């Protein structure tokens, strides 16, 4: 039942939208959630991965997720980025979906995705998920909208301190790009007509390791209940650097700083990891239906960090 079938009124002022791979866009188009002009950018943008002398990569925004997932040098330098790319969507979608599109994709909230229901992201005044069914909602309730940010790559890039360049600005952190979760109407801070051009990753640190995992109910091809990209440097059996970025739990990808602090300088073993996993949920504010996400978050931290500590 697309929008017209349901006789709903247009829910938002149609604004022009960029289309890269079109995977998220076409679905919203089919359902009637997106009704504005299409600006196809697939032929015009940057699809290259380039490396500087320090071993730092710059990824063009139109690079496909499959390219990132299978690029040997990316996998060696930034294994958490490669693993995140391998873990998202399906093989066919990864072939055409782009990194820029992944960052700028729209919310997966059930209510947002239905053209016949108003919500904050579509110019409405209330969040129907908050009072309704928010099984897949946030567990860190940071703003009026309770949908977690959908971008797996954003969480990965957050863990790697990536910066983003648009056609208007450069040096944007993930937080600059996506905001702090307090803004309900958008999934990012890009101005109308502003386009992501490229993503820059700092050169990997000596001895750093990284990994990614998502908690889902099936084996593959499911939006994460919770996902975690972790990056560590372990020297002499102790954590020298820990970067934990979680998706699926908050309106924006979340750095788990309390857990990072708890682990810094600690022995890389199951006990310290378990303690840090508990600390990771400090400041969490779950909804009536989402407390389980905090358990899954702890499980993921233990899973990923124990593997990285091996």
């Amino acid at each position, binding site marked *: 039942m697309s929008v017209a079938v349901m*006789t709903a009124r247009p829910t938002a002022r149609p604004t022009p939208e960029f289309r890269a791979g079109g995977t998220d866009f076409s679905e919203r188009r089919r359902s009637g959630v997106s009704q504005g002009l299409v600006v196809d950018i697939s032929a015009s943008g940057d699809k290259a991965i380039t490396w500087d002398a320090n071993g730092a990569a710059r990824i063009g925004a139109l690079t496909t997720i499959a390219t990132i997932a299978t690029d040997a040098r990316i996998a060696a330098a930034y294994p958490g980025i490669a693993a995140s790319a391998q873990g998202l969507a399906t093989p066919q979608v990864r072939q*055409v979906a782009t990194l820029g599109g992944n960052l700028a994709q729209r919310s997966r909230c059930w209510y947002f995705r239905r053209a016949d229901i108003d919500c904050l992201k579509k110019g409405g005044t209330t969040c129907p998920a908050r009072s309704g*069914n928010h099984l897949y909602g946030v567990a860190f309730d940071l703003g009026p909208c309770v949908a977690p940010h959908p971008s797996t790559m954003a969480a990965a890039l957050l863990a790697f301190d990536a910066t983003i360049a648009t056609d208007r600005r450069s040096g944007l952190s993930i937080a600059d790009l996506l905001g702090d979760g307090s803004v309900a109407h958008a999934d990012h801070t890009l101005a109308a007509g502003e386009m992501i051009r490229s993503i820059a990753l700092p050169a990997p640190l000596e001895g750093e390791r990284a990994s990614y995992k998502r908690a889902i*109910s099936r084996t593959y091809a499911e939006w994460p209940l919770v996902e975690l990209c972790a990056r560590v440097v372990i020297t002499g059996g102790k954590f020298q650097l820990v970067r934990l970025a979680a998706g699926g739990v908050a309106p924006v990808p979340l750095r788990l700083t309390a857990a990072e602090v708890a682990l810094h300088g600690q022995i890389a073993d199951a006990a310290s990891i378990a303690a840090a996993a508990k600390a990771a949920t400090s400041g969490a504010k779950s909804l009536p239906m989402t407390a389980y996400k905090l358990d899954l978050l702890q499980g993921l931290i233990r899973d990923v960090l124990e593997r990285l500590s091996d």
Partner: protein
Amino acid sequence: MTATTINGRPLVLPDDPDALLIDVIRDGGLTGTKLVCGSGVCGACTVLLDGVPVVSCLLPAQAAAGKALTTIEGIGSTGLHPVQKAFMAHDALQCGFCTPGFVVEATAFHDSWRATKGTATPSREEIAAALSGHLCRCGAYEGIFRAVAEACSGRFDGNDPVAPRLEARDKVTGLARYTVDIHHDGQLEGVILRVHVAHARITSLDLAPARTIPGVAAVVPLLDDDNMVRFVGAPIAAVAARDRRTALQAIAAISFKPEPFPAVIGLDAARRDDAPIVFDKKDRKRAGNVSEGAGGAPVSWKGNVRGPSAPFSQKAKQAKSWLDEARAQRNPLLVEETFRVSTQQHASLEPHAAVARFDGDQLTVHISTQAIHESMEKIAKRYGLPHDKVRVIADHVGGGFGSKGSLGLETIAAIELARAAKAPVRVAFDREEELSVAGYRPAAELKLSLLPSTEGRLKALSLTAHADTGAAVNSLIAGLARLIYPADAKELVDYDVLSNLPPGAPFRGPGGPPMSFALEQAVDEAALRMKIDPIRLRKLWDPDPNRQRLYDWAAGLDVWKNRKPAAAQEGRYRRGVGVATGYWLYLWQTGSSVELAVKGGRIVASCAVQDIGTGTRSVIANTVAKAFDLEPQDVEVRIGRSNLPRGPGSGGSRVTASVVPPTLLAIDKLKAEIKRTASRTPAPGSNAPWREMIAASPDIAVSARRQEDGTPPPGIRPALHEAGIMGRVFGWVLRLMNHMVVGAGVPSSVQVMEVEVDTWLGHVRVLNAYTGLSIGKLAAPMLARSQAAGAVIQGIGYALYEARETDPLSGHILSGSMEDYRIPGIADMPKLEVHFDEAGFEHVPGGSVGIGEVATVPTSPAIANAIRDALGVRLTEIPFRPDRLVAALKGRDAA
């Protein structure tokens, strides 16, 4: 205009930036590429773009510019690809609707594997990862694993194989045409306008604005005559236009005013005393029907609650008093629990669809249906047409699972639009319609009390089921517990709880899986308390001879004998093994007829039956071929047309038992007729006397109707006889009203599941599944195995993943996409062992009964019992999602 090539031929792409590749492909007549989910998750629309698999349902057409596009039709166009041959040989398909997508992806995987790894065999994990962007609702994954592995290893580089499924070649090449693929000259596209509120009276409806839109050919109202709408998505009107986009514009132009009524959503809200009423007394007959048979005796209503319905109770008062007494005495053997099962959507990959066309007064309707003959009768009755003026066609049906058994709105809309437009009209539900208003197995709350006697027999059982039926009635869950595990007393009570949700519908063994989910866990719990092996207890309590043999098989499995107790397990991952039992009725349809003919020296078998992926063609071909010493491929099977001899509907697992017996009768008649008309006898010592005689025979035809069964051995009775006089009454009603006979002997299933639980991430994986089935002789062994495997994976979906999500206030279905309604993928398929016990139905001509339903009944409780075995904690609500697992584990920690 930009150009590309499709299967090597030039293709001009449209300039429209919104045009999607799938529409360009299908509008060009290449219908092997299927539209299913429209969200890139099921892979049915997969095509190759410069050799790379992509989903054409999301791909802008312009993205194909300058690239070589290959569809399923372009694969193996000069001879079958090894993957196609392997799919055929391993029966890696059932309804076939997902097959083109799987084949396209698998050929790309195969070609790159062979290029780099030669003829090494890929692992299950490698295959699963490569095919993780595909979904199959029939659950053909087991065959797909085998097919891809063996194609990669080079085993299918040679000659074309003989496929156990008669129509397999058409399905692996994309040539099989389903209802959605039908295209007549001048055909219009129909779309249904649906309401966006849960409960209202439509006080005004203006169709005129839609009629003025260019390209619109017809607009018809679909409102019920009381002008009420009782769920989000209830139909208001339908439009036929030159294309879907125009039709969508037209329905958006229709204006109507809903006068809102208070609405109530879901089981818990609807049974409150102050809940708004969904159906007033006078309107109750407007409710839908969630069962396969007709309703039984009149049932009382209170508000939205219809019931109690308890015809199958047995000494209910006695049961109650024994259970009260046990409760008062805190009898440690008394098992009491409340279970919950969730709503299960059929999620057939081919949506409900119909294409209607009038040629003068002759109406031809292609329908994606489970009942072509009955649909023809119902259409004729509804529109006052003689039977010979209505022809229903379904050559291939992309899944049904119970949802396509009755005359649906898609058909009514297509017929009425075609009549009004004087042109052929196609109506095909979109995925959201399919996953919201096209029926479902209702969720239910099941309150159960089970009391063993001090001697260890089953003394009393009480089961009360409240089913979340939406705008429908007639759920039968608790009553089914009468037909297994005889007890001294049983109180079995069913209630329908109606609310402003779409109506439920029959779904594969309707109330069987929910009943089994509760009862089989209770029996398991009783065994734990009685400190007796759960299979041993079932052997004691369940005298059915078919299941007795299956229990012996299950008890002998290594996985069962080597179980470790939960208490012995520590750490993150825990393993458990569980068992459960299921049964279904053996049903056949009276009047089912088969015609056998020799035409042009070839045997032709004809029956107005449909093949929804279950293998009806092969069942008939195998039966005929065996009798004449032919290969099944030598027999031409004509089905899928209502003007053939009357055949059964595909529901109640009745097809095989309805068509094999008359086929056997017809075989005898045809043999006699061939001999009688033969001008000469075969050469003495001929290796193939029948083949020679058929080749030399003049054109002749015979037909036969389904005969009664032979006398069963003593003690073999119809399942309904367990329910005494009420069971017999129920049987009579079924025969009179539904032309269905409950035969002697009980199709049965015993399953053993081994699971691994990840206690950190709340993830349950079924590692190994063992399914033992007693369904008589196998008319088509490989296809029976495919159904057994498919039933298990569908049961795994029910147990672990599948849940319909609704908004509790507005009544919108939130899980209306395949992203959000989660059916199992190939990686979720466990290793499977199938055991067929072919005895028990010798009194049935041919010895075969149906498999579809019984095979899925015990899967969810077997998994529940395995989780209990792994964790020492019993989960009572499915699906066992991560959120429920971690909550249950916390509950245990807290306790």
